[in-house]
């Protein structure tokens, strides 16, 4: 008598009573399948048919203002790699997943990318919460993971990982460079107010800023600490309050639609005429708000990337990237596009390094992961080095808004490019403690400014 499980094409799970032969066959097939997976995962030195890259980004929700440009940049860069023959002759294929539904969903997606899609490497993520969640998962699943855009400094200050690396800076240098720039260009200010989004980044960035401010210029009066709802559309009450308080400086690390709305409403109600704004993420809003953002305010770009960088490493490459992106997507590339470039650049450089270390052999997961540690790779404006703790060292640019006839939006002048080592907490130190040790003498060692040309 033949059991159901012996019949070809019928899954064993449908068998009400599985035979011993069927069970043995199933076990053998399963073992072979696992062995094959294991051979791939550990690397048999054979080139794969393609390199699949899982990319976590925001395709829905408010943060898709960053996520979609990031995806667009990835599509363009992957096309360029494939047009040039791929990485060591192997084509690359991105598989995008949406961070929009939240951390729990993202964790499932991460596992799916590794277990079902069998991606070689994962770029993850924009959300700091997703990065904090996926770094331990990268080690658990032993899959090289590049934290390509998230800001939280806690990932590599609170943990050590073998498979997770960040290809850009973190919140500390991004906020500290803004503070240093403010202290340089407006050293005599005595009062400040903050308008940040009410979520982790808004709160954490203010904490970093305030800790640094207390160390470098104690005694500044904090006129107001305002944390409107994340995704707020109406800032009129906050603006009225600030108009009445007249702080000399207003800090806002907001981004996306929130920042656009704040800038437009503040401009309409002449708040820019009463206070100097300091906005470390405003580069990403410049094109959208146009000349509603007046000249004379201080802005940053979460890195040293800016299409009018005063001294890019390879001006032709920066111009080519900018033009290609503009032609294809009809927008100027903003910082997530540059962060995506950096992740792709790190991947290419790490593969080259790992293949060379293996004398031309194809690296397995752990060999590829090892290649990222200490890796120096080119960005569009300079280069980034991944430290021994996995954190990327990336320079930071800050500038003052300036109106030029050549662009329909504000651009930066009096630009200052802060060396990464100067504004990043050293390996093994927590940012909040390190910031307390900063001395006002630091202000005498700042880089020179470069004008808009």
């Amino acid at each position, binding site marked *: 008598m033949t059991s159901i499980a012996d019949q070809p094409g019928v899954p064993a799970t449908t068998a009400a009573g599985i035979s011993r032969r069927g069970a043995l066959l199933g076990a053998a097939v399963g073992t072979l399948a696992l062995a094959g997976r294991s051979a791939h995962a550990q690397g048999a030195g054979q080139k794969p048919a393609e390199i699949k890259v899982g990319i976590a980004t925001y395709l*829905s*929700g*408010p943060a*898709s*203002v960053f*996520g*979609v440009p990031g995806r667009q940049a990835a599509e363009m860069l992957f096309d360029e790699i494939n047009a040039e023959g791929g990485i060591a002759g192997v084509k690359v294929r991105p598989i995008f997943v949406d961070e929009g539904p939240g951390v729990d969903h993202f964790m499932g997606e991460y596992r799916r990318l590794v277990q079902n899609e069998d991606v070689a490497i994962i770029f993850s993520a924009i959300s700091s919460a997703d990065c904090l969640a996926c770094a331990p998962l990268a080690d658990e699943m032993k899959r090289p993971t590049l934290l390509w855009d998230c800001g939280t400094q806690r990932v590599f200050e609170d943990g050590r990982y073998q498979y997770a690396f960040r290809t850009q800076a973190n919140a500390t240098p991004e906020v500290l460079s803004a503070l240093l720039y403010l202290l340089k260009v407006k050293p005599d200010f005595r009062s400040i107010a903050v308008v940040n989004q*009410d979520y982790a980044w808004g709160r954490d960035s203010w904490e970093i800023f305030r800790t640094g401010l207390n160390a470098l210029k104690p005694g500044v009066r904090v006129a*107001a*600490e*305002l*944390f*409107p*709802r994340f*995704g707020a*559309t*109406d800032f*009129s*009450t*906050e603006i*009225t*309050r600030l*108009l*009445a308080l007249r702080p000399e400086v207003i800090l806002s690390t907001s981004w*996306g*639609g*929130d920042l*656009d*709305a704040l800038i*437009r*409403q503040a401009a*309409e*109600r*002449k708040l820019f005429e009463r206070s100097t704004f300091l906005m470390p993420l405003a580069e990403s*809003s410049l094109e*959208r*708000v146009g000349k*509603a953002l007046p000249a004379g305010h201080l802005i940053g770009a979460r890195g040293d990337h800016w299409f009018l960088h005063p001294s890019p490493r390879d001006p032709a490459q920066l111009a080519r990237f900018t033009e290609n992106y503009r032609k294809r997507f009809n*927008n100027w590339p903003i910082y997530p596009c540059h962060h995506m470039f950096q992740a792709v650049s790190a991947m290419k450089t790490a593969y080259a390094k790992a293949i060379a270390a293996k004398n031309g052999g194809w690296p397995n997961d752990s060999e590829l992961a090892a290649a990222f540690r200490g890796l120096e790779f080119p960005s569009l404006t300079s280069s980034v080095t991944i430290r021994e703790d996995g954190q990327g060292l990336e320079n930071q640019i800050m500038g003052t808004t300036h109106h030029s006839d050549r662009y329909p939006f504000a651009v930066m002048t009096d630009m200052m490019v802060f060396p990464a080592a100067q504004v990043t907490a050293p390996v093994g130190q927590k940012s909040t403690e390190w910031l307390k040790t900063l001395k006002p003498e630091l202000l005498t060692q700042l880089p020179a400014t470069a004008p808009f040309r």
Partner: protein
Amino acid sequence: MGWLSENGLLLGLAALDGLAYAASVFMVAVGLNLVFGVMRVLNVAHGSFYAIGAYTAASIGLAIAAAGLPSWLSLPALLVAAALVGLVLGPPIERLLLRRVEGQEPVLQLLVTFALFMILEDVQKLIWGVQPVSYDTPLKLLGTVDVPFGEDVIPFTAYQLYVLPGIAILTLVGLAWFLRRTLTGRIIVAVTTDREAATAMGINAARVTMLTFTCGTALAALGGALAVPTTAMVPGIGASTIVLSFAVVATAGLGQIEGAAVSALLIGLGRSFAVYFEPELEVVVPYLIMVAVLLLRPQGLFGVAETRRI
């Protein structure tokens, strides 16, 4: 008294801000309440109509500017956008979707309207993309008004100070007049009160429902269109709007038009005072007010308690 004399001027400023905020919240909540009053459907997709109204108003306004037409047309364009969204989306959604779940379990209605919300969110992204969309010509057109503040002056936009509260008051008065003084309005009230009896009297309840839903959709779209000059539209704006609208509607009592105005005012002023005097509470104040009201009056400020039917 000492505190009041010290902060009297600030309270005045806060009241002006709160009034404008209440006006914009009311515009969205009143449509939601109208639809619930007639159809007994809590429409989650109402937030999408708000967002689509805003995007449509921005698109029409930008088209007016691109065509070189006079900028004053940007003001009526806001109303045109709302009417357009109401007429294009309202009837087909009511006819093809909501009518099929009318009288069904509230959970099913919520799920269906939530599914619609998700679909419309993606439609927005397909049409307008994910980058924030702004259109501030109406704001610029009307300029600013200097409000005295001690020896200082605080500039407010005329749009915020006059247009938003003005349109909200007109909507409230107009709706009350329409529902109580016109034949169509009385028919709507009749259907709301007792659909079966109204139908027995020869009223086409299905048509009334469609008309009401179209009006509700247009009101949500008008809320979005009026918001677009002062804000930036981004994906997800509909979700945050609907959550706040639910708070207003729950505070007011489901189906209560005037109640929506009072609760919007309470929430608007409460949020505004929080920004001035206790900023940490800004985000939670609307929900604190809602909880406080529901603890004292579970049916809402203006809701009527219903006897449970066994």
